[in-house]
């Protein structure tokens, strides 16, 4: 077992703090940490048996949406676990698209032709954009399946095909576990893969890995030097960090961001109003966001 991230915390009060400048992005851990996959690089270690966070009900999502609406929310993101395991997911999307644009981060396995058609109808019926982001970790089964699970490459591509056939153009999300993904040549390989299944405007997002959760077991945890410290505040501030404009709602309360939901210290309160204060960047994952310029947004 790796060294505990929480045991590496610097002296309290020494990490720089980030103010929330506006609640632009509202995240929902809509499927909790429950997933039909158990990817070896998952920074929240989601699996069929991880109930650290449980699913959110439509009523719970609507309560937070109402609160976020009063705060001027700009966009809503759904993640998990696998969002489409939530039996109310489509009703949740319908409710959301009445007030704001929405993005769903999915593993693509539950995107049947019927569901894809219903999602396309939801998108067509809203004045706001609906985006689907489908995760994949390689150009073929040999590279993807060891990470995401046996047989997943073909099933993910089938889901992407179903979205495309329904007129939706998903964003393929790839992590740096796929070594070449961030190079121009690597991106071109993913674009070619998408074009090969009939998507003529391929979209791709490449994310670095966070060395926490399952990924820490797979490839190693953070080193103690991978920390932000007081005095490291950039000249133009922390506006590049997503936590300067987002909060995450789970069934356990409101958290600073989508990455740290398995760190109790990153829970900020029970409601969004409780969670509008500053957050101290004293987790090594904050270092990744800063150094790699990460935003979980599309």
């Amino acid at each position, binding site marked *: 077992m790796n060294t505990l991230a929480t045991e590496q915390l610097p002296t309290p009060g020494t990490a720089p703090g980030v103010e*929330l400048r506006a609640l632009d992005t509202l995240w929902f851990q809509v499927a909790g940490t429950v997933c039909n996959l158990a990817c070896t690089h998952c920074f*929240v270690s989601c699996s069929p*048996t991880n109930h650290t966070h449980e699913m959110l009900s439509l009523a719970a999502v609507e309560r937070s949406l109402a609160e976020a609406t*009063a705060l*001027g929310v700009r966009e809503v993101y759904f993640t998990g676990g696998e969002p489409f395991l939530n039996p109310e997911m489509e009703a949740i999307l319908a409710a959301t698209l009445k007030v704001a644009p929405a993005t769903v981060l999915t593993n693509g396995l539950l995107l049947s032709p019927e569901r894809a058609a219903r999602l396309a109808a939801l998108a067509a019926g809203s004045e706001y954009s609906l985006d689907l982001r489908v995760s994949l970790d390689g150009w073929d089964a040999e590279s993807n399946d060891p990470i995401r699970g046996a047989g997943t490459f073909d099933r993910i591509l089938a889901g992407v095909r179903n979205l495309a056939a329904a007129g939706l153009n998903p964003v393929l999300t790839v992590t740096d576990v796929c070594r070449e993904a961030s190079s121009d040549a690597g991106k071109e390989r993913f674009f070619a893969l998408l074009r090969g299944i009939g998507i003529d405007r391929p979209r791709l997002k490449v994310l670095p890995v966070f060395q926490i959760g399952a990924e820490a077991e797979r490839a190693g945890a953070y080193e103690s030097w991978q920390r932000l410290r007081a005095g490291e505040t950039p000249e133009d501030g922390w506006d590049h960090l997503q936590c300067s404009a987002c909060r995450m709602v789970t069934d356990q309360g409101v958290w600073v961001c989508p990455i740290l939901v398995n760190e109790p210290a990153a829970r900020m309160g029970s409601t969004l*109003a409780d969670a*509008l204060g500053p957050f101290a960047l004293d987790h090594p994952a904050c270092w990744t966001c800063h150094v790699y310029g990460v935003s979980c947004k599309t």
Partner: protein
Amino acid sequence: MTERERMALHRGLATWGERLVPLADFRRAAAAAGRDLSPEERAAALRAATAVLPDTTPVEGPWSRIAVCGGIYNNHLGLAALLDDAARRGAEAVYCLGDLGGFGPSPEKVWPLLLQGDVRTIQGNYEESLASGREDCNCGYTDPRDNHFAAVSYGYTARHASADFKAWMGRLPMRRRVRVGERELLLVHGSPRRINEFLFASTAPVPFLETLLDRNACDALLCTHTGLHWHRRLPSGRDVVNVGVIGRPANDGTTAVWYALLDARPGGGLAVELVPLAYDHPALAAEMRREGLPEEFVETILTGWWTTCLEILPARERALSRY
């Protein structure tokens, strides 16, 4: 470890960082973290998060009818057509929301038209970048192809605009406040928050806009930067208008460019009209070719479809696009 073993790992346990702990331990620690505010503190936190921001911009006007255009992108023929059209329609003043350069030919030709037409202009990201000697237009693209064409476009304008014109750009205000009838309009380039923030119709929802107008204390917000025009009347009765651009067509398969007319209504209201504008686009295309600008740009002028910088379009707008 087999996949089956890995999947069984979390049964009854929670992941706390890299540790597996009893679920109850995690939830107890989480519940103890953060701080729940009292109802009074919550109300105060909400008030602070949506409080009016200080702004000392002087208010111009009042006018009863104005014309407002967005990015000119060196399209001097479009600007000349706009000045004629606005005068014909009785506009008392013409405003421009910035991005004078880029895309089109001969940057210097726009300047005398702006001066002669008394066009009240604010800075766009192009002016901010050109005046401060930045290496790029700060458009905020991430796609390599978009960045290539953005660099071609910015480099051409940076080389062909005079130092005097650039210095003039740098003296333009970043925002204006304008009274039309009884309504106070806030004029910005991208958004009141950031010069290069994109406000597209499908990603600028009502709650966000209402809060933006609350925080910036105005009755109407006028912006550009996206290249696509739209108007939304908010439930509060206020207006948000993306006036579009007169530099290139609106990615709709027609060669017209767009601007906005704002009219004071009896009783204190505001009428908003988005106006399609025809101009001598074949002449602009010919001049662009003479200047050696990319054929991709010329195609947009001649067909009305964008061929570059499409990455910025949200899903809904992109679905309506040819490319």
